[in-house]
């Protein structure tokens, strides 16, 4: 009883984590299913056919590639623009700071339906054709804010003495940036890019408003939900999840090892 009281918070915490992963486990398990009817909802029989023939259903892989293209393009532009704003906010004094902060904050405080529908209203009023580029435009718009927040946090958390040291050692502004500042901020930028990509790749609501007849991966899933989602979709989603999680875990592990070695090196001196 006393043990339980002492460990109550860790136990609840781990239960919450388990709760977060239950639906993902369901998605993964159902990718090995051979559904009884057209809806892949209940377990029926083990089968590897979806994994062996992952592009077997027309439209699945096509929409997947479309989402990859949109995600990469939008992330690239959004990350560059967002990083520039973050640098300006942390490193410079200028008029219009609060307006800038407001403009960054508002898209995050606006529900996706409003973001999606307002852009659609603009494109309709301009008679602008909907498709690949309108979705890319929309995704860049919502990625920027998230990148600003992530990179800003990284910049503010940086030890200013590192840059001072570089300048004490007669590095000019440019090489200080190239050899000290940028490498230190890079993990933050890459993390922000990964976040931006997963937001873009997974976005349904904003894309649905601005895609016209274009079919992204989430739009494909939404349409398929009415008539039964093919098992291949579960397989692809599981694959993406495993790859993304592996990338993040490996980079975290490398980071951890490097820090441990640095600490060991410092205490040896």
């Amino acid at each position, binding site marked *: 009883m006393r043990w339980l009281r002492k460990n109550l*918070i860790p136990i609840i915490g781990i239960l919450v984590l388990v709760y977060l992963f239950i*639906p993902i486990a369901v998605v993964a398990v159902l990718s090995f299913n051979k559904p009884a009817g057209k809806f892949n909802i209940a377990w029926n029989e083990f089968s590897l056919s979806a994994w062996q023939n992952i592009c077997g259903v027309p439209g699945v892989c096509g929409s997947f590639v479309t989402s990859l293209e949109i995600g990469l393009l939008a992330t690239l532009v959004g990350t560059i623009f967002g990083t520039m704003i973050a640098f300006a906010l942390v490193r410079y004094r200028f008029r219009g700071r609060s307006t800038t902060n407001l403009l960054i904050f508002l898209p995050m405080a606006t529900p996706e339906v409003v973001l999606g529908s307002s852009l659609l209203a*603009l494109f309709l009023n301009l008679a602008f054709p909907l498709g690949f580029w309108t979705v890319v435009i929309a995704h860049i*718009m919502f990625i920027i804010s998230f990148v600003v927040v992530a990179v800003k946090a990284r910049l503010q958390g940086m030890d200013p003495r590192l840059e001072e040291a570089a300048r004490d050692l007669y590095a000019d502004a440019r090489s200080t940036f190239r050899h000290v500042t940028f490498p230190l901020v890079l993990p933050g930028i890459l993390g922000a890019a990964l976040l931006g990509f997963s937001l873009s790749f997974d976005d349904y609501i904003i894309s649905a408003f601005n895609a016209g007849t274009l079919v992204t991966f989430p739009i494909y899933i939404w349409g398929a939900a009415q008539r039964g989602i093919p098992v291949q979709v579960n397989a692809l989603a599981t694959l993406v999840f495993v790859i993304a999680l592996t990338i993040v875990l490996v980079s975290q592990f490398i980071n951890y090892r490097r820090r441990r070695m640095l600490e060991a090196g410092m205490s040896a001196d």
Partner: protein
Amino acid sequence: MPAMAPSKKSSASTGVGVRRRPRTAYLLLIPGLGWLSIFFVVPLISLFATSLQAPTGKNGVYQAAFQVSNYAEAIAEYWPQFVRSFIYSGIATVLALVIAYPLAYFIAFRAGKWRALLLVLVVAPFFASFLLRTYAWRTILADEGFITSFFNMLHLLPEQRILNTPIAVVLGLTYNFLPFMILPLYAALERIDPRLIEAAGDLYASPFTGFRKVVWPLSLPGVVAGTLLTFIPASGDYINATLLGAPSDRMVGNAIQTNFLQFRDYPIASALSFILMAIILTLVFVYIRRAGTEDLV
């Protein structure tokens, strides 16, 4: 809109390395802020203009007008969806806070070297498709499934089922936006000096009093940010209501989506969007007055 501008706090720009060349700053700002102006601010203006347009007689074609009655019509027809949206997302936000707090507390104070790993696991659900994760709840909450049977045995379900009821919609909303609650809570808790909690104990405060008087007040910025980041997307969401609820559980997002994409009633859809945003922004700015944007952003 100067009246809405957040309180001026220059805390972010302190420290070494702050340069005073505003020209470079503006060059850095132009592309991103330009993009946000053209594809976020201008669309909102366009949305407002559309919300006042009048029909031309041709289906899906509207002309510029000042038809304020669109708003009255939108509210008259869709007020139940508005009420449902705010009730569902309100309950989901409270549930998410209750669930997220212990985990955030655990990661901040008790996780030790596992902290970074646990944080990765909190954001990991974002790497799995939102739609598929929501759809997976259909399997978990299925009528003949373990969970529904269990609660039916206790006679706790008014409709004898969870799926296709408001309960499933609220559970889906709670689940989907939970990481947005956990992360800001963690960020606030992590800043608390653990010695403060020890000090409370040394002064004979019970663990509960220590929590109530020390930890909870200091974690309030995280609570504010987390509830906003959960409530805002939840109130506009229509994925959970569509995939997990019955037609009678539809939310305002559903109304906006069907009016825009199926009925092509752009003015009503725009009016609905605008009302939703106005309500949410009002709520947000009441909160911001207490928290300050620089802390939230």
